[in-house]
């Protein structure tokens, strides 16, 4: 798959240039020439503006003591109060640490495992087997986290948990381990659960990328005597690179979204120092108290962080000469 972007565009209709227009006139002229492209995208730009940008007026709520009973312009103004509540909470940095740590672990594990699975599936020679494995691999994705967390908790339990049974029978540990009772293990447990639940689903997009690779390349490589690993390294992975980089940049923007349900459901008094993340904090002090202002303030904070990560990642990709988001 060629990811080279042709630098010299060819206009759909070559008009005989009378004189080279510049600036705004150039823009207008180009718009005229590309009216089909404009028609194909502008209606959706309007849609985007209405459905995604208009509601942003709601951000004013973050600076108000918002009460749903009143129109948004008749609220009491609160200044930075809600941001202050958020940032000065004694637990804020612990919460932020947990959020970043789990998010980072999930990001790295999620990418590596999904890509690996896609490659391994691609290397299977029997097409039926490949399809069956692929189908089975995404099944946990359809379990709600309530069901999935129940299974995770059971798997890790003291007496009946398969993990402890295996470990004690192999003599690796003498006493069964109280996995969910040790805070330090929590991030790992969340990471592993997330991989288990989503790896099959996440690998679909990479499988799609692999199918776009020209099979002739593999045939040529085989004739040249390239080994399996060489073929993976020099053909499959480069073929997926654009998608990987694009997804990576987009996901870096979600760095403060470490998930919510898994943490909430697996959290307990013994591991909560490591489990509570930003979303849980906002749930406790914002949404469940009907405090929409605090929830909005936290949302703004997340957006700011997202943008920082997004633009940094994008410009790094640009500098490295990789595919980029925009």
């Amino acid at each position, binding site marked *: 798959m060629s990811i080279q972007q042709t630098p010299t565009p060819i206009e759909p209709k070559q008009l005989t240039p009378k004189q080279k227009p510049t600036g705004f006139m150039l823009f207008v002229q180009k718009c005229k020439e590309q009216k089909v492209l404009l028609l194909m995208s502008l209606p959706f730009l309007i849609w985007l503006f209405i459905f995604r940008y208009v509601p*942003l007026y709601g951000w004013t709520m973050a600076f108000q003591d918002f009460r749903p009973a009143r129109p948004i312009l008749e609220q009491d103004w609160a200044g930075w109060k809600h941001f202050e509540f958020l940032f000065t909470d004694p637990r804020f940095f612990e919460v932020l640490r947990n959020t970043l740590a789990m998010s980072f672990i999930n990001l790295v594990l999620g990418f590596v495992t999904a890509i690996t699975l896609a490659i*391994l599936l691609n290397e299977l020679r029997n097409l039926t087997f490949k399809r069956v494995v692929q*189908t089975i691999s995404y099944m946990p994705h359809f379990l709600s986290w309530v069901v999935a967390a129940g299974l995770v908790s059971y798997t890790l339990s003291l007496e009946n948990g398969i993990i402890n049974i295996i470990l004690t029978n192999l003599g690796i540990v003498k006493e069964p381990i109280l996995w969910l009772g040790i805070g330090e293990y929590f991030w790992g447990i969340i990471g592993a659960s997330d991989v288990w639940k989503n790896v099959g689903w996440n690998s679909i997009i990479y499988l799609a990328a692999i199918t776009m690779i020209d099979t002739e390349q593999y045939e040529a490589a085989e004739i040249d005597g390239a080994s399996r690993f060489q073929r993976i390294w020099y053909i499959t992975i480069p073929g997926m690179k654009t998608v990987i980089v694009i997804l990576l940049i987009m996901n870096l923007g979600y760095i403060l979204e470490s998930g919510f349900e898994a943490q909430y459901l697996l959290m307990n008094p013994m591991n909560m120092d490591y489990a509570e993340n930003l979303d849980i904090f906002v749930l406790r002090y914002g949404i469940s108290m009907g405090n929409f202002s605090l929830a909005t303030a936290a949302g703004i904070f997340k957006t700011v962080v997202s943008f920082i990560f997004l633009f940094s990642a994008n410009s790094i990709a640009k500098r490295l000469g990789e595919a980029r988001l925009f």
Partner: protein
Amino acid sequence: MNLLKKLTGKRRSVDDLIFDSVNVVLMLLLCVVMLYPMLNTLAVSFNEATDSVRGGIYLWPREFTTYNYAHVFGESQLLHAGMISVLRTVIGTGLSVFCTAMVAYTISRQYFVMRKFVTIAFVLTMYLNGGLIPTYLLMRELSLIGTFWIYIIPGLIGVFNLIVVRSFIEGLPETIFESARIDGAGEFTQFFRIALPLCLPVIATISLFVAVFQWNQWFDVFLYNSSRPELSTLQYELMKILQNSNASMTSRTAADAFASAQGQSQNVVTPTSIRAAMTIIVSVPIICVYPFLQKYFVKGLTLGGVKG
């Protein structure tokens, strides 16, 4: 060993043999780990609810019953809601995929004047959220509340999907488009006749993403259409049944009221058993439809022909 041979297919060298064997064994292990939760859920869904409270159900029900399903399907609304779900999944997916792909095509064209602007305008919204109440009020202004279109219009284009499709189209050899243009094809033809068919794997992928999203959605029903039972969806009806089975446990303050229902009546369904049945009911259609999409991203595809 024979099976292994069959699964690993014809091989060429010792390295290959080792690689294939290890790979197949790994994949079989993966199947066990990934299949177990579904089988376990299936077993629980067919197990008597009160007995399930005791735990320890693995692959087979201990006290078999179909009551959990009977209870769920006893809800008269369910069939109609299922039809709405199918409708929103089909219409929602079709429209969304088409529109997403079309916009993706425009921003994949390097020479498009608005390319950068449109791309950034879309990308930023991934991380922007005006919040629940302003969004609700907007939908109200647009008179979308209480209509079927609230399921379709607000989520018409998924930005994530948009960017993914764009990068696939960008990956297509530019020469194909060039020769099409020389043959006099306009932008829409290039999109419809070249980009769309050549990107079938990614189109299939995002169709799957959108379809599953639409199929599982219940929050918009809850928020916008909860007083319009004729527009209720399968997931929402199932959530209702689940919530109802939760009734005895939801509220501390109303404890006294619920205790009376509990002290006297034996609970024949529990949230756990309902949830298991729900999971199966919702997943089965997806798993049935899946193979039709799967063929597009599991089989290899040769571009050689069109490259010509």
